[in-house]
């Protein structure tokens, strides 16, 4: 991505386990330009499984469980478990979540604009698996036109038995949270709602709702065709399959790529043309993720297991490279101020606490009389307290920055700063 625009090119990165033609799975090959048509989609992947009867539904959910597919929206929840929970309810609905409110992530946009039919296949199959007759596809504005055209193309040939509706997502960070997506569809308010009840029990119009990230649905569409063993043929035994990652920051060609889970981070950086400057740190996962030292992380597998001892995880698949010439604290302060402004404003600790915390982090970043004790106190008061995970994510980001950039902290305390470059995309400020 240049600046804060959408994805540029999409390439495949050979995974940890090499199989001929193993990758890319979700994205078209590099030569293809523009979205894949329905005909092209069917030519590449073959037809989706025939219409599902009830026993077939259950065996397909079991196949998804054997495949070990987990959510690709950042939380990594086992997909089969979610499918089973919603299928147990009455009159369920499927929501495909292509909001991608995370500014640093472009993978969902890339997937929706390059392989729209794979996403739609997944939504339809998920609907058939849980017994839903309707799927709502919530898409980032950048993908609205292409997804809309793909839905129309399928409708023209009556491809699906499931009704599909397309809605443009709200342009807010928290808009991608599961209950916020449902709230947006129902009332046009992109704010999370109280839980219990979970959206899988009572969501859209009170019905059990399956909210699934579009990438997860794309994987689902392929598992339904090729089976669990095929899905597990790349990746690691505990974290099977491939995932889309967004590599940005101090790299030659910011890109979104498809890698096998467990691919060394250095290899993922190579997919983006390699680093464009010596690196000091990486932000892994997204703006709710963690900073890690570049030197330490470079050989680590990009997986939960591979990053656990660094206190990090793959999250939403973001790998942001921080060059030596930038200041990690200043970058964190910019992101935290943005995230504080993106609070839905419904819960006191988030609405007031994040604002106060952002002020302290800014002071730390600019060496202007910060109060570390007060910051720690507020981090503790805000962590885990709110109607959604927004404050928790911000606390996690800040705590990792204090760990990784402790040398900078000392320099700033002495009134000296190291860097000025700015690499993390932060949308321009808005008034709430």
């Amino acid at each position, binding site marked *: 991505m240049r600046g804060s625009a959408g994805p540029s090119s999409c390439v495949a990165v050979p995974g940890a386990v090499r199989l001929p033609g193993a990758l890319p799975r979700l994205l078209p090959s590099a030569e293809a330009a523009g979205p894949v048509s329905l005909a092209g989609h069917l030519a590449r992947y073959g037809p989706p499984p025939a219409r599902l009867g009830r026993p077939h539904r259950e065996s397909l959910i079991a196949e998804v469980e054997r495949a070990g597919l987990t959510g690709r929206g950042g939380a990594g929840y086992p997909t089969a478990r979610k499918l089973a929970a919603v299928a147990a309810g009455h009159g369920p609905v499927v929501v495909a979540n292509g909001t991608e409110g995370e500014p640093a992530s472009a993978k969902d946009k890339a997937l929706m604009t390059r392989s729209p039919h794979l996403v739609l296949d997944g939504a339809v199959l998920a609907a058939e698996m849980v017994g839903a007759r309707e799927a709502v596809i919530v898409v980032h504005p950048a993908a609205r036109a292409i997804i809309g055209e793909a839905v129309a193309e399928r409708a023209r040939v009556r491809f699906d038995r499931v009704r599909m509706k397309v809605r443009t997502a709200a342009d807010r960070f928290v808009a991608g949270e599961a209950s916020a997506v449902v709230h947006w569809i129902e009332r046009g308010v992109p704010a999370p709602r109280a*839980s219990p009840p979970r959206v899988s029990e009572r969501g859209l119009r009170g019905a059990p709702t399956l909210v699934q990230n579009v990438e997860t649905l794309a994987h689902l569409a392929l598992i339904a065709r090729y089976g669990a063993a095929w899905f597990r043929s790349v990746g690691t035994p505990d974290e099977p399959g491939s995932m889309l990652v967004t590599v940005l920051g101090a790299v030659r060609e910011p890109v979104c790529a498809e890698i096998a889970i467990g691919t060394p981070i250095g290899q993922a950086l190579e997919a983006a043309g390699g680093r464009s400057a010596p690196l000091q740190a990486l932000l892994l996962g997204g703006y709710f993720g963690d900073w890690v030292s570049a030197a330490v992380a470079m050989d680590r597998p990009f997986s939960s297991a591979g990053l656990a001892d660094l206190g990090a995880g793959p999250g939403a698949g973001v790998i942001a490279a921080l060059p030596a010439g930038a200041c990690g604290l200043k970058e964190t302060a910019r992101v935290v101020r943005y995230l504080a402004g993106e609070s839905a404003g419904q819960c*006191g600790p988030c609405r007031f*606490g994040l604002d106060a915390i952002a002020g302290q982090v800014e002071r730390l970043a600019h060496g202007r009389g910060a109060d570390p004790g007060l910051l720690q106190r507020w981090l503790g008061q805000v962590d885990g307290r709110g109607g959604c995970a927004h404050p928790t994510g911000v606390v996690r980001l800040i705590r990792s920055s204090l760990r990784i950039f402790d040398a900078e902290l000392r320099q700033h305390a002495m009134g000296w700063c190291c860097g000025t470059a700015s690499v993390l995309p932060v949308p321009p400020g808005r008034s709430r």
Partner: protein
Amino acid sequence: MTAGTGQAAVRLRVDLIACDGRGLCAEALPELITLDDWGFPIFADRAVPPRLLADARETARACPKLALWLDRGQPARRADGPAAQ
């Protein structure tokens, strides 16, 4: 975690979206509830002891936004996991 009587643990829960930070709960049950720096309730990380159960029920009744309630037994399994993006 169960109390000595063998009954399921009772915990205080608050819906922070409904909560307005009016602070009645911290006044009513200071043994278990305090307010953060912005006036919103923080609960002690333990079950409500039996001697405070009646007070806890009254506190939940007194909340002007009905944001406070008592959760008996294990919390329901989260089918959605943590908030997904």
